């Protein structure tokens, strides 16, 4: 049974008054389980930063409660708040490192603040530097580091006090795709190694696809959709979710294939062009070969793509089915029974 690590209940945050009033969070409720990587995706201005900043009380919501590991952070003040914050690491889009301190000094900073002993401090800092792979940059200043290296320092610093939660505010948005991949890899690694709960906000769907277990879609300060990432990809319910999905998955059918399907219709050869979409384990099953064997239809694969959402395969296959129409119908039933989503691209049957 998964244990809830962070819970937001009816959180509302409003900035400004009168004409300038902006409802940044509108009655948001969320549950984030211990040890999961929880992604929050939304367009610019949707309220992502506000949401994540409420979690460590950098912003104070007008109403609602936020509970972390059973402790209501929205109630905490002064010393108690500071002590709780030490158990919540945070990394930022623009890294926010101390420019006057070296890599070592930056990672030592949270430990100094928490009053760590000198001897322990050094050992801890060195092991963190090793963890993020920056041993050769130990006395470099942030200005001498690349974006990816700076974020590694940010991650090491955030982990210094053994937090239970790591908040990532657009942690990869300032990085190129290669560096993004390596930073996401590092986050996934520490998530598994330390069973760390990670809350990650982003406007990039590939980040969600790469490492998140659960995702919430935020729009105009409201959570419009929430669930396992695989679910969202399989059955996006809102237009926003669909739009985000399209940005990483080629759900569009190539024009040539559409045309080809129509031509095939014209010739009335009795064949059908069908798109099969699948998610999860079916990808590993020999569906196509059973199809050919069982129904005596000819299968011509004309387009295929396969991708992974975290570790779940996801993709689509466009095939021509040729043979007697009753056999084609039966073959299609068979595919539907296997839990595959079918779309006929030619003829009258409308596409979903």
């Amino acid at each position, binding site marked *: 049974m998964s244990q809830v690590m962070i819970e937001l209940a009816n959180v509302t945050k409003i900035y400004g008054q009168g004409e300038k009033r902006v409802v940044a969070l509108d009655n948001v409720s969320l549950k984030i389980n211990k040890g999961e990587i929880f992604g929050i995706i939304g367009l610019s201005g949707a309220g992502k930063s506000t949401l994540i900043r409420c979690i*460590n009380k*950098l912003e104070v919501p007008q109403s609602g409660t936020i509970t972390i590991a059973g402790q209501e952070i929205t109630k905490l003040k002064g010393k108690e*708040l*500071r*002590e*709780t*914050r*030490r158990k*919540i690491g*945070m990394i*930022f889009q*623009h890294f*926010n*490192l*101390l*420019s*006057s*301190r070296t890599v070592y000094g930056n990672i030592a*900073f*949270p430990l*100094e*603040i*928490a009053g760590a002993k000198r001897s322990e401090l050094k050992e801890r800092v060195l092991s963190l530097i090793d963890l993020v792979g920056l041993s050769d940059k130990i006395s470099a*200043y*942030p*200005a001498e580091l690349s974006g990816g290296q700076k974020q590694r320092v940010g991650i090491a*610093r955030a982990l210094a*006090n053994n937090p239970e939660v790591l*908040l990532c505010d657009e942690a990869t948005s300032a990085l190129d795709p290669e560096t993004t991949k390596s930073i996401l890899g590092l986050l996934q690694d520490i998530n598994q190694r330390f069973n760390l709960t990670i809350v990650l906000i982003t406007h990039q769907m590939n980040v969600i696809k790469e490492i998140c277990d659960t995702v919430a879609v935020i729009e105009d300060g409201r959570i419009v959709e929430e669930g396992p990432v695989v679910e969202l990809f399989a059955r996006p319910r809102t237009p926003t979710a669909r739009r985000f999905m399209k940005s990483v998955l080629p759900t569009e059918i190539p024009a040539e294939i559409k045309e080809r399907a129509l031509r095939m219709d014209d010739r009335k050869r009795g064949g059908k062009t069908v798109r099969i979409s699948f998610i999860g384990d079916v990808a590993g099953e020999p569906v196509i070969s059973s199809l050919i064997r069982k129904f005596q239809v000819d299968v011509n694969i004309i387009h295929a793509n396969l991708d992974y959402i975290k570790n779940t395969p996801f993709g689509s296959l466009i095939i021509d089915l040729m043979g007697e129409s009753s056999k084609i119908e039966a073959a299609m039933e068979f595919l539907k029974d296997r839990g595959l989503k079918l779309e006929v691209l030619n003829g009258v049957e409308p596409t979903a």
Partner: protein
Amino acid sequence: MWNLLLKALWETLYMVGASLALSALFGVPLGIVLVITEPRHIRPAPLVHKLLSTIINIGRSLPFIILLVAIIPFTRWVVGTSIGTTGAIVPLTVSAIPFTARVVETALLEIDRGVIEAAQAMGATTGQIITKVMIPEAVPGLILGLTMVAVNLIGYSAMAGAVGGGGLGDLSIRYGYQRFRGDIMLLTVVILVAIVQGLQSCGSWLAARLNRR
């Protein structure tokens, strides 16, 4: 003549040095309070901020020569005398404090807010944020700012002659101007220019040296 010059140089250095140290002692904390009490900073306090800001503005708008005379009773109360080199240090300091506070404010406002926020997120106290984040991050700006204060003080110290404070400016006026000693006038000016140049170069060099950004 050289004795006169040497004595005047020492007086100038003493006045400027002492009032610089004292105005930093009061001006730096004031500048810090000014910054942290700003609306979205670490200790927002609009009333304190407004009050302090107004007092500083008033202080900065008073002409030095008027301040010098106006605070004579205060000077006497603080150092026991209102004349002489020591007597000049009090008005110099009082006039430099508001300027120092503004200069410090400017330097501290240049720090990236994100860095301060990161420290807050890590559970740093207000004191830790000031001493471990704001001041170290603002060191180059603070050095440049204090250099500016020092140069200003050298200028003002020339007026200290009005209260018998001595110094190079005073020497230049009394001997150079009033007794037509062109050589002394020229020399004092040369020395003053050299001091200002040297100070500014040192300040700029140090600031650049310590800048890690």
